[in-house]
């Protein structure tokens, strides 16, 4: 069966379609968000840095699991991405 070309996810509850092969970090950026996680001592939210799973700056909640490196997760149909959950802060 051929892979679907578009994947539907939600980012903070908003529906978003992304090309197949898009990683969760890219989906968050496509939703227009720049901040991914709150720094431990306050200040502006952080976004991805290394893009390869090393820096942990792109951590978000994915399908209810907090602290997931969004640059290492390929979007799947129905995936729920959240940057606004306090449990992830």
């Amino acid at each position, binding site marked *: 069966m051929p892979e679907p070309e578009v994947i539907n996810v939600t980012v903070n509850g908003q529906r978003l379609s992304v090309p197949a092969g898009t990683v969760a970090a890219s989906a968050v950026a496509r939703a227009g968000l720049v901040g991914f996680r709150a720094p431990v001592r306050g200040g502006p939210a952080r976004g991805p*840095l290394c893009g390869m799973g090393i820096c942990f700056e792109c951590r978000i909640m994915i399908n209810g699991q907090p602290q997931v490196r969004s640059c290492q997760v*390929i979007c799947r149909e129905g995936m729920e991405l959240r940057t606004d959950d306090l449990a992830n802060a």
Partner: protein
Amino acid sequence: MISPMPECDLLVVGAGPAGVAAATVAAERGRAVLLLDDTPWLGGQIWRGEQQKPTNAQAQTWLNRLARSGVRIIGEARMVGLEGPGRYVIETPDHHWTIQPKALVLATGARELFLPFPGWTLPGILGAGGLQTLVKTGWPIEGQRVVVAGSGPLLLAVAAGLKKAGANVVGLFEQASPASLARFGTQLIAHPDKIGQAFGLRRQLAGVPYKLGWWPVRAEGVNQVERLVLTSGRQTLTVDCDAVACGFGLVPSLELPTLLGCLLDGEAVAVDAGQQTSVQGIFAAGELTGIGGNDKALVEGQVASLTAIGEHAAVFPLHRSRNGWRNFARALGKTFKPRPELLKLAEPQTIVCRCEDVTYSQLSGYTSWRDAKLQTRCGMGPCQGRICGAATRQLFGWGMESVRPPVLAARVASLIPSDERI
């Protein structure tokens, strides 16, 4: 559940060019080979996306050979530690195993060196390779104004890739001086294909301002980067932008070899002519032994693997090429070494450890990495010093004294010895 204990002739950690070459040549000679990678993809960072969208003939050749060779591949798998000599603990999202291979090839590659400067924690400032990697997996870059800055040949490739993806590359700034690059250019005579590559990239970048001997000093913006200030030491320049791709070269990912007791030679793993490390039966190949790119990685991977499985006659013809790429790596390191000014960019309030938000002023006064960790929590967050460790090595001269298992945050179940698991 007691996990099975796969036995194999060769275990290869890392599926970039070095690991792919190592695994392939051993499997092609009938050996049982297990290849692990931390990501769900094959090809490492440099060949990222080649499985989905083929663009690189060399990558395709090797990935096809790998697919035909009979190597057993496990993605999203990390080696987290060892359970006695030669018994390695492997973890995937759902399982863990203890594996006892006859030989081990480490090909864990490299990551970007980030040097802190004021504003570098603003969203929109990514590594050069980091942004390139994300763009290959859907990051929206079309129409964005991007500054590419830092050091190393990667910058050219990144700028060309971003431009092709529709970004408006508003400037490319290399910190190495024109004189240093001219010297490097003359050494490239030994590697004519590299000269061709460089000219090809420059052609693709026609119309993009390209400055040598310039480096970033400060990024500004409220919730994300809005502009980058750069200097040549004499002049300064402010460039408005939506994103910055900034990396100061690559550093080998040494955690695993260090944990396994492999001795280092400077900032790389020390190896002999057969790519064997100081530990019998453990080999290292690719960026781990010195940053030199995928051609060096491919030949070293083959040398490591063929030596490990005892096919010495097949290794001999590869020595000349391997030694050539090693010289290339040395020249590369010398040419693109960060200039001293880059080590003075951080201001007292500049964050150095991004996980624990430890500032430059909090770190000054400590004499070692261990001291600073204990007193400030620098390097103790989720990334375990993978970003600030390399930075503080440059800024303060601190070395990584020891690595203790698990190498990365691991599940408790993976850490229980296999004979005690229920």
